């Protein structure tokens, strides 16, 4: 396959960026999208140019590092991560636009690499269960109904890639935040901090400069792990409940 790539190039956080055009040839349909970029970078290095910077690590769809907007879609045309997208999803002669996540809470570091540390700070605000090492009771002391355990798992699958923010026209982090709120909130172990968790995480989310939710559903469509849009609904309910409870105290 022969392809034309239009890639966002930006030297560093302060520099202006622009799209640059490159040609790559000899691309096999079995290559992953990132392996195709590896080919481009090998070319660029040998030509004495700066290779394209992009985040990637596990390349098996679980670490959440890769983060490219491909032809306007976060992670490209398939519902998966960029690293699990294969070139068979494209045709010979295609022109492909590659851009970084765009959101003011995710500033660009270089080329296609963005700073997603805002997500870490949302988790730090309350996305945990306080259980210092050594303090745990016997695991079977508290049975968890299977539907609750499954619900928790479904939300715990979030890989923190940020595709939800990238896809959202408002740059909102509601799906990310709600996934953690719901994962921990449904479990009996997470119950004592259920109210403070959702209030603190949402407050932090707002402070980080993410937008608000207009329920366009773009986040859930882009999510490679299939976190459902109802996750946001449930967080809203949790938040209102927590606000009422806090007011009573």
């Amino acid at each position: 396959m022969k392809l034309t790539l239009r890639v966002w190039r930006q030297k560093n956080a302060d520099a202006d960026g622009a799209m640059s055009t490159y040609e790559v040839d000899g691309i096999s349909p079995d290559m992953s999208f990132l392996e195709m970029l590896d080919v481009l970078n090998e070319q660029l290095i040998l030509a004495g140019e700066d290779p394209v910077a992009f985040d990637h690590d596990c390349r098996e769809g679980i670490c959440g590092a890769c983060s490219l907007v491909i032809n306007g879609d976060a992670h490209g045309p398939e519902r998966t991560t960029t690293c699990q997208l294969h070139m068979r999803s494209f045709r010979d002669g295609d022109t492909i636009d590659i851009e970084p996540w765009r959101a003011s809470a995710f500033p660009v570091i270089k080329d296609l690499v963005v700073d997603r540390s805002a997500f870490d700070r949302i988790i730090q605000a309350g996305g945990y269960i306080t259980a210092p090492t050594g303090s745990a009771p016997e695991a079977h002391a508290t049975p968890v109904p299977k539907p609750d355990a499954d619900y928790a798992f479904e939300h715990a699958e979030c890989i923190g890639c940020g595709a939800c923010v990238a896809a959202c026209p408002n740059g909102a982090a509601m799906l990310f935040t709600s996934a953690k709120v719901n994962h921990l909130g449904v479990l009996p172990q997470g119950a004592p901090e259920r109210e403070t968790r959702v209030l603190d995480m949402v407050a932090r989310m707002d402070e980080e400069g993410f937008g608000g939710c207009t329920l366009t559903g773009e986040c859930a469509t882009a999510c490679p792990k299939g976190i459902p849009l109802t996750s946001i609904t449930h967080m809203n309910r949790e938040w209102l409940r927590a606000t009422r409870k806090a007011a009573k105290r």
Partner: protein
Amino acid sequence: MTDYVTYTTGEPVADTKAPEGPIHERWDKRRFEAKLVNPANRRKHTVIVVGTGLAGGSAGATLAEQGYKVIQFCYQDSPRRAHSIAAQGGINAAKNYRNDGDSVHRLFYDTVKGGDFRARESNVHRLAQISVEIIDQCVAQGVPFAREYGGLLDTRSFGGVQVSRTFYARGQTGQQLLLGAYQALSRQIAAGNVELHPRTEMLDLIVIDGRARGIVARDLVTGKIDTYVADAVVLASGGYGNVFYLSTNAMNSNATAIWRAHRRGAYFANPCFTQIHPTCIPRTGDHQSKLTLMSESLRNDGRIWVPKAKGDTRPPNEIPEDERDYYLERIYPSFGNLVPRDIASRAAKNVCDEGRGVGPGGQGVYLDFADAIKRMGRKAVEAKYGNLFDMYQRITDEDPYQVPMRIYPAVHYTMGGLWVDYDLQTTVPGLFAIGEANFSDHGANRLGASALMQGLADGYFVLPATINDYLARHPHRDEITDDHPEVQEVLAETEDRLNLLLSVDGDRTPDSFHRELGELMWEFCGMARTDAGLRKALERIPQIREEFWRRIKVPGTGEEFNQSLEKANRIVDYLELAELMCLDALHRTESCGGHFREESQTPDGEAARKDDAFAYAAAWEFTGTGAPPVLHKEDLVFEYVHPTQRSYA
């Protein structure tokens, strides 16, 4: 041109920390004997933790909970992305919830036997004891393990054992456990007890007066190289499987932290013990950048086979039952498809070498779920393995519900690592190694679902108990600052190394060297090793290294985000480590676990150990790049599990 095939033998090395006495009392005894640091004084002690995977994340969180000041590093943009996240199958624990005859002693026994009698008994027993606490800890943190309808935890079986002791969270157990540790760490970061440096990579170790006192690290965003000093340094930087270029490791997993520590005096033990995982998706071409694992749990229900006839190119569904060879079930009837990894991998290699392999290049065997789908129904198979099947289909474009998966072994884990004593302390006082970075618990082969167990045991429970003893005995009243001459010297050396890389301006990319080294290692230091092959590799590696320093091309500068520079610098270390791996493999003329020397096999082609000559851990001391290292042997004493020829038949 190299003398590297020679080495000298130094004084034996011994673990002096494990107490004497009955094995099940040793850990209690050690914890009691270890000195403690007064809680009020802990704030005055700083501990550096490198890495935020299961071991590093759990250690950082726990040390901070105890009151120590922790400075933690990860090269990823977030601690949540450490490669522990990719572990799929599960975590072992001797809970015996199934009442199927499991016990701490059985887990201990299985692990020592599975490791082909090359692990230290005291450490393994402690691991088995702690395993039960890990599950409690993780459940309390909200890890959503799979559960039965009654609300209790579900378990499944893994290779090399006959009990069902593996706890799991669908095919994403590592992710869920890591997020648990990450969240605990996040809580401590928010509390100000952990100072986290993401996108920062350790480049060297600072040793002053014989003790580890800090590290040199580079901020990958700005390129700035800084020094960090502390009272102790903990390396939780993972394994070195990426020496092989193609492996199931993350692209950026690397050996720099442990190799630089080795160069500063920490012994490196059993570097040749690498685990080749039997169930990975075969490579499709030269462009391949990494290999993807298919969880071992698939072997619970999938059946492995190849055609009986050589060169049978019919599609799998057209090959009748009596023309298929379910070779694992045939050779190992009592464990069947669930033999340990090293055995399954070698068996796959053997049938492929016979010309019975399937798929492109004959480098693959079938993992077939047709029977499981018939027995349990597609729905049940989907519920158990759905995400793995999806992943397989995405990568290969084949539907595993319709046609059998094709799998082939790939480098997955390294049992070798920095030598540590019972306290997990290396030969450099004040330098600790935990998780995959150390060598301690798995011997010559790791059982499935034991890496997660070991990482969390080290991080949550072992290190936080043992490091107290070191800190209490070495209060470090002598303040060391960043302008200390020895700190500055290490900093200067690091800067020089990076500048040298940038200045060569040759004509080959970092990846081209990495790929070349990886292919060489896979061929000669992979699944089957020979004297001649290893000697050949030992001749080639210095040549590649020499060429590297002549022809490497690293674009850009050191004062910016520069991924090529990161890569090249890691390859510098691989080029030295690879040599030690080959030497270790050459010197160990026995076969054991994942280390298979063709010269040492039983008539049936199984690994033949030589306990008289090699019942030791080989701890290597660095003497200079390309210079003959010194071998220090730690004799392994087996008081509870007596070495036998492993039998899974």
